[in-house]
């Protein structure tokens, strides 16, 4: 099995997922892990698709739907596959007045601590005059929570709150 990563973006409207996945199903493709999200009025899809015969064939399968719905798409052959999940052991929450550089500073300090980001969600909320930035990161690190807290303590600002918490996944 050879997976392709399908990236698809376009103005949000009802039916995108249904039409894209229906075309893939009829084309004999199978789907793997996916992330689909509305971002800034666009609908975005990142989805693993079993490559089937060729990249060209997969592209030809999606093109008519993408044209009809006004979507742009892109295919990349990928290494790896299913069943490669890593379970996060830390969550980092960031919120505060929206200003340039928050993500770079926070993730830079985390990277220096060997923190591997597995998931990151961020949003700009509040009002147009007073935008507020909210970010949630889940990831894996060998370090202790105290070490991560100390690393993030180097942030030279009191405009944003950064909070690290351990995730103890319950298996039952």
């Amino acid at each position: 099995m050879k997976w392709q990563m399908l990236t698809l973006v376009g103005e949000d409207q009802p039916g995108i997922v249904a039409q894209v996945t229906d075309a893939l199903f009829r084309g004999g493709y199978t789907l793997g892990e996916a992330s689909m999200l509305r971002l800034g009025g666009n609908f975005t899809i990142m989805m693993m698709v079993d490559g089937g015969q060729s990249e060209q064939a997969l592209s030809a399968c999606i093109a008519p739907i993408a044209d009809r719905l006004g979507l742009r798409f892109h295919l990349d052959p990928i290494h790896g596959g299913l069943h490669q999940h890593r379970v996060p052991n830390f969550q980092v929450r960031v919120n505060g007045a929206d200003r340039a550089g928050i993500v770079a500073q926070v993730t830079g300090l985390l990277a220096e601590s060997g923190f591997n980001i597995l998931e990151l969600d961020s949003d700009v909320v509040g009002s147009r005059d007073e935008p507020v930035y909210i970010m949630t990161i889940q990831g894996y690190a060998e370090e202790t929570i105290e070490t991560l807290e100390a690393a993030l303590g180097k942030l030279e600002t009191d405009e944003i709150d950064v909070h690290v918490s351990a995730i103890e996944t319950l298996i039952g």
Partner: protein
Amino acid sequence: MAILDILKLPDPRLKEVSQEVERFDDELLAFIDDLEETRQAGPAAVGIAAPQVGRLQRIAIIDCSTTRKPVPNHGRLVLVNPEITEWDGFELGREGCLSVPDYTGNVIRAERIKMRALTPEGELREYEMEGYEARALQHEVDHLDGMLFIDRLVSRRTDLFQRKVYQKGGKKRK
């Protein structure tokens, strides 16, 4: 003693409601030994419920005494016919399950509960639990009611933490 086979999704028996235990005998005690051995044999599970090994009876074991970071707990509990009598608060936490391999997700659970159960010998016990242990108990009682944590998943964008901070009157400044 024996390690029992764990039922895995989509086994339909995981969706069935289990029956109350009525006979407290040696056979029950022997089964509980096997259930505990099975719990310890797998990947670090803090709990296990009888229906996970195909016995549709209201029996569960939880043990939150071995978490990486210690949490309030009552040690290892064997719970027969457990019943939650009070729920309080709510909290988001990540769960996985022996019956749902290779997947973890976020679930909302009550933060504190009161519950009662019988011992394997049929004696009534009552407990108040909080946090992680309360979560484990709710996860196992769900198994007895034919529910899996994947039936309670919330979107990864759901963030209750923030609301919780506000309830406590704001976070302390760093």
